């Protein structure tokens, strides 16, 4: 079996493993732990300079204050209004583009595929000015729809790469068998390929959801008001509101970080290997 179970390693290696693993974990989680601690710290602690010490009390009402005293609920809603349409739009487009590029042989197939891939290599910062102008001219500047449309366009390239390779790995005989059986191409996509893509769809939806939810750059470029700004951009504006209210910003951050985590757990049961088991041979 590879990798070998740690129980079979030498005692020294086992000891090193047992020390290094928690150390690495703590190092990895330290910033997050810091934010979590700060989010339950009373404001007085921060005023007294107790930034990293033990909180003097647990102030869970920071979480209530942040909802009461800021627009975070609105920001969260804005984030959902951008993220959910983006995830759905990307998945719809990329399952279809992926299917076309994986299944059909046509002259410019590879060229188109490379274009999708190459799009991912464009540093998105250089798109800032043209995209801002484009959305402005389309009347979509400072709207959730404009932000979502841009994200769909930009994410579909990566999603197409992912989906195309996934479909390419499915046994092609399944498609041929269905064709011989008289099933139309659209129905092959819907009844044969789509059900087998469940793990890919689940993985991509978590990935895209997280990308878009955590996006800060385009959120600040394309939206400006509290009515449209997603939570990432909104949180940074909290900073200006309360210069030293780190406990509230932290609480807001923790809340803002929750949806991608929940999304992961919601999709987890679809991450299954061996869906095509029994199809061939």
């Amino acid at each position, binding site marked *: 079996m590879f990798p070998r179970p740690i129980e079979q390693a030498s005692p020294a290696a086992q000891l090193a493993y047992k020390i290094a693993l928690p150390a690495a974990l703590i190092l990895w989680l330290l910033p997050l732990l810091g934010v979590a601690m700060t989010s339950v710290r009373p404001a007085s602690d921060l005023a007294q300079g107790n930034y990293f010490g033990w909180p003097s009390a647990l102030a869970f009402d920071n979480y209530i204050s942040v909802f009461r005293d800021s627009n975070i609920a609105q920001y969260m809603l804005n984030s959902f209004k951008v993220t959910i349409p983006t995830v759905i739009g990307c998945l719809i487009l990329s399952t279809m583009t992926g299917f076309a590029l994986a299944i059909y042989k046509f002259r410019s197939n590879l060229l188109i595929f490379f274009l999708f891939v190459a799009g991912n290599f464009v540093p998105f910062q250089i798109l800032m000015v043209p995209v801002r102008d484009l959305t402005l001219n389309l009347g979509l500047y400072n709207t959730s729809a404009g932000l979502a449309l841009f994200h769909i366009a930009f994410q579909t390239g990566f999603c197409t790469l992912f989906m195309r390779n996934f479909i390419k790995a499915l046994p092609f005989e*399944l498609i*041929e*068998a269905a*064709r011989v*059986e*008289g099933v139309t191409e659209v129905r092959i996509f819907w009844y044969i390929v789509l059900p087998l893509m469940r793990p890919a769809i689940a993985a991509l939806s978590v990935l895209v959801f997280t990308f878009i939810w955590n996006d800060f750059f385009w959120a600040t470029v394309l939206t400006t008001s509290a009515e449209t700004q997603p939570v990432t951009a909104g949180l940074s504006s909290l900073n200006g509101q309360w210069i030293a209210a780190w406990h509230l910003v932290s609480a807001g951050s923790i809340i803002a970080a929750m949806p991608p985590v929940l999304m992961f757990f919601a999709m987890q049961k679809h991450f299954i290997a061996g869906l095509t088991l029994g199809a*061939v*041979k």
Partner: protein
Amino acid sequence: MAEVKIRALQKAYGAVKVVHEVDVDIPDGEFVVLVGPSGCGKSTLLRMIAGLEAITSGTISIGNRVVNNLPPAERDIAMVFQNYALYPHKTVAANMGFALKMARMDKAEIDSRVARAADILGLQPYLARYPRELSGGQRQRVAMGRAIVRNPQVFLFDEPLSNLDAKLRVQMRSEIRELHQRLATTTVYVTHDQIEAMTMADRIVVMREGRIAQQGAPLDLYDRPANTFVAGFIGSPSMNLLPGVSRGGRIEAEGLSLPAPDGAAEGRRVIWGVRPEHLELDPSGIAATVVVVEPTGSETHVVLRIGGHDAVAVFRERHAFRPGEVIHLSPRAGLVHLFDEATGDRIN
């Protein structure tokens, strides 16, 4: 049900021709086996009949309808793939009924057809299972069931048994044959296994390098192979072939004088052939040195050296030959084959 006519069919990938001018007529209800070594174009030919591969030139008609440009869906055929290609997310019943459901057939009709196919193939206990929960032989049957339910004009089989173990293969061989006797649907079956071809076919088409080497009834191919390729391919162990020269009504080869049938002109360079099972002990026959003795139980294969060539003889009797021993053999009367050395074509 329908006849299949293939006329001057060619297939090329760029400059590389893989099927050359193939003509095959398959009468309604016949079981035809395409057989040949790998790369001979037999699978390509089948896939062209199925419509999964484009035709470079020539025509294929199914039941008086030229299907060259019809998509597979409109050819009214069913195909069983080498690796079964079952829909892994569907149960056995759903796998078999899927095409009918897509054709918007009545639910009750689908159920009765699936039940009938399951009945024929002994799949009733497995209808609710998924392909991953079935054994290789059961999956094979589901793939056949999927073909049967549609009641197509032609069945196409692409090496369907090559993924099964030897015992199951023999069993499925007769099951497929029995199924054909029951349904009498025109069938084209591709295999590289000559035993499968011999045992299953009404007619065998032997292919070599994209051309038909010979077609005919299995025993005709066995009795009168048209060339050295078919002679060597059909029959197991394969025919003994010795090159020689025709002189005075006999064939001189390797310092031996071999009995020969009529037909070879004096001085012609020929290949003399005899099947291992047609050699018998004869004190005045050809001298041969025993190399290896392979008992199979029902018969014994004896690997020999005749002159500088390897040969095999098969005996039903249990002779106690020892390696190194010299024995004398003669072919049975009328069972010698002669081929031209240059072209490999049959002479007698």
